[in-house]
Each structure stands twice: as C-alpha cells, then as structure tokens.
C-alpha cells in the first residue's frame, strides 16, 4: 500500500494539512477486526445503536421494511463501514440482540 502513497518530496512539510475538513477522506474503517451486522428482521428501530455509536457510523436511512410478522417500518439502520472501527458498542447496547459482531476476515487454513 505504501508504495502508492506520495513520497517525502511530494508532501507538504511538517505534516501540515492544507485542506480543511478532510477527515472524511480518512477511512478509519480499516482498523476493524470485527464488523457489526444488523439483522433487519430482529431490529425494532429503537435507535439506541445510532445514539451510542461513538463514530456516528450507524446511519438512519429512509428505507421501508416489513418483517415476517407483517410489521412495517418506515426507516432502517445501516452501518457505514468506511468509518465503523468495530468497537462493538452497538451490539452490546442492542436490547433485542439484532447486531452480531462477525470477523472481518475469514480465518485462513
């Protein structure tokens, strides 16, 4: 990866950042070992994961969902994997265990 990045002579000196607001370009999601996966069927749309996420990586989307019992939700919760660091707070706080932390990479044998 590092060979694709600019060299010392191409970088602004002293690590100075000349473009404000560029933290969005810094994808912190690649720190993750475990990723949260939301089971839309179990999810009761309580919004607790959205509230607790320290990285604002849970996103509320206007996406309708009807579960097997016929209950219709107007919104859904998704994970922004670009910024989710995999801390697992959402899974811990979810009152209905709708979020599972699964390994980011399969174990290689």
């Amino acid at each position, binding site marked *: *990866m*590092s060979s694709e*990045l*600019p*060299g*010392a*002579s191409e*970088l*602004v*000196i*002293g*690590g*100075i*950042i*000349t473009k*404000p607001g560029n933290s969005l370009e810094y994808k912190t999601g690649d720190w993750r070992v475990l990723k949260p996966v939301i089971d839309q069927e179990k999810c009761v749309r309580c919004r607790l994961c959205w509230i607790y996420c320290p990285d604002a990586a849970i996103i509320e989307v206007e996406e309708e969902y009807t579960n097997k019992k016929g209950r219709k939700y107007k919104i859904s919760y998704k994970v922004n994997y670009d910024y989710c660091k995999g801390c697992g707070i959402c899974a811990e706080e979810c009152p209905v265990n709708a979020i599972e932390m699964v390994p980011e990479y399969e174990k290689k044998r």
Partner: protein
Amino acid sequence: MASLGIVKEVKRPKPLSTNSAIAYATKDLDVDVVSAYPITPQTTVVEKIADFIANGELDAEMIHVESEHSALSAAIGAAATGARTFTATASQGLALMHEILHIASGMRTPIVMSVAMRALSAPISIWNDHSDVMNARDSSWIIYFVSSAQEAYDTIIQAFKLAEDSEILLPVMVSYDGYVMSHTIEPVITEERDDVLKFAPKRPFSYRLDPDKPVTMGPIADPNWFYEIKYQQVIAMEKALVKAREIDEEFKKTFGRGYGIYECFMCDDAEALIVAKTSYATTLKTILPRMWEKGYKVGLLRLRLYRPFPVEDFKNILDKVNAILVIDRAISYGAPLQGPLAMEFSSLISREDLNLNLTSVVAGIGQRRMIDSDFENLVKLAWESRTKKFDKTIFYGVRT
C-alpha cells in the same frame, strides 16, 4: 557623516556581553515575539530585550511564561502564525524544553534560540559546560557554537535568515559559553536595523495559521505518513549545510565579517589538530603561535556549525594530519568514547577510511578551571598523539 557622501561613518563598537549582543541582534532583526523564562546564565538576554520593548526601541510581544516547556510551546504558536520568534534558555531550561524541541523542528517552525550553555544537575551547577546542548543534538535543530560576542550577534542574524528560508524551515540554536562569554564584555559592532532587515527580510512561513486560509499544523501521522515527514527533516538538514555557508558568505560581503561554517586556525603544515569550540577555541588561538615557536605544529579546528555536521570539509582537513585531539565539554556516560564529539569524529575517520590517531579528551566539566598552562598541556598531548595511541577517553583535570 554619510550624508556628505565622502567618508562612510566609522562604525564604533559597543561594549557588550554576549547576552547583550544577542538582545541587540533581536532588536535589529525586529523580532515580533519573544517567549522566555529566566534561567541563569541566560536571564540578561531577555532582560535586555524587555528593556528595548519598554523603551519603545523594539515593537515586540514579550510573553512571560511559567516554564521553559511553555516558553517554547508559545514560541511555536507564535512562529506558526508567521511571526519572527525568538527565545533563549540554558541548562535545565533546555532540558525542560526537550519534548518541545522535537515538536518545533517537526512542525518546521523557524524559531531562533540562544543557549548560554551550562552544566546539567545534579549536583547543581550554575557554571559552564556543554552538556545541555550535547543532550539536544538529535532534536533536528540547526546548532551553532559561537566564540565571541560579535560572532553571537552576527550569527543570530544569520540564523534567522537560515531558519526562515523556505527550503530549510528548521529552528536554530545559537550556543555559547555561560558566564565565560554570556557575562564577559567585549567590543561589538551592531548594524542598522534597515541593513539587517535588508539582509534578513521577514519571510513569513507560507503555511502559517491564517483564518482566511485555514490549515492544520501538528496533526497525528499514522505509520503510512510519519516516516516521510521525518525524512523531510533529513533533507532540510542537508540543504542547511549548503545554505548556511552561502548565508555566511553573503553576510561577509554585506557587513565585512565572516566566519565560515567552521574555522581552521594554523592548519597549514600542522601535523596534529585540536578540535575545540566556543571560548576554548579563542584561548587556543592565543596559545598556538607560541607553541609553534617551540616546535609543536598543532592547528585548531574550531567547530561553528555543528548540526548539520560539515562532513566533507572535515574529511579533507583530517586527511592532511596525523592526529586529532577532540575536546569535549560533555560526557556520554558508558559510550564507547565518553566524549560525544570525539565519537562523531571517530565515526568520520573510520567511515572515510582515514589514517590518523584520535584522542578523546573531556575537560572543563562544570567549568573546571582551564588556563593557558592547561591548553599548553593539551597541545603537547595532541603532538604526542601523532605517534602514541590513547585508546580511552582522557578526563583532563579530574581528581581520581
């Protein structure tokens, strides 16, 4: 008078200590911010600057801080806005700044700092040696050792021009002997502010903190970025070697005084050299002519620019002699040679495959008295070392 257009006004020297000479240099450079904490034997530098500000001779912001750690931190903030920034310290003060030294150079803030060198505690010593600056040698600061009040004045001017060069942007330390120089009055010619500013115009850092053009300074750099940013400092240091020499030459053309980035005194036909800096070099200059009359053909290599180290120049000088004796005024405890400067010369000799004897001498620790007869002994030792190898560091003048 100059207005008559015939006779140029003769510059009359002022009687100044090195500390005062440095304060005059900051006034003539029109520094914008001075952030400092008093410490012996540096204190009179900033006292004099405070006088200049109080008298309206210098329009600068003097920041009184609670420690040297804060002094340099405030200086970084000031320099980051593009202000011409100065600070001064010594000994424990420089040690307390240590963390911030690396931040100043890493953020590439062109601060100039004078250091009235003093021993480090414990036991407490307010007297002169070089342990404070030698302790800070790897902090990516450009380091000068100066030998007179006049050279201190001139070097502060050169230092700002070097630090603020867009190719360099590294902080500079101008070091000299505490008390022996800091409090000794010598004749010093000072220059007109207009001339000094013409030589060293203010060139605010292009990436300075500016609300209209926001930047972030001193961010975190993960393992993908940190190494390249530190490597930029390596390159800037290499460029500083060339630039420092050019600036000194330009200074000589402008003001008639030049020093070179090092000085070789009585080096022609010398068979051995003594490497010394600051006041020891000046004393040796008075000793060497009479030692030559007695047959000791020993020259003096006076170190002026220490970081970056003038490797190529020293290599050529060392190539012509049979022996060098390196005087260190700091101890590198437990090192292969306990003289830190001797170790650098030793590595230069082996790396360049030079064939000469090196003798490491530690002297003047905590300002242990060194008078003419002591320097004569060292000249004789340097002479003897042409044919005799001293493997261990010699602790000159210590009671064992």
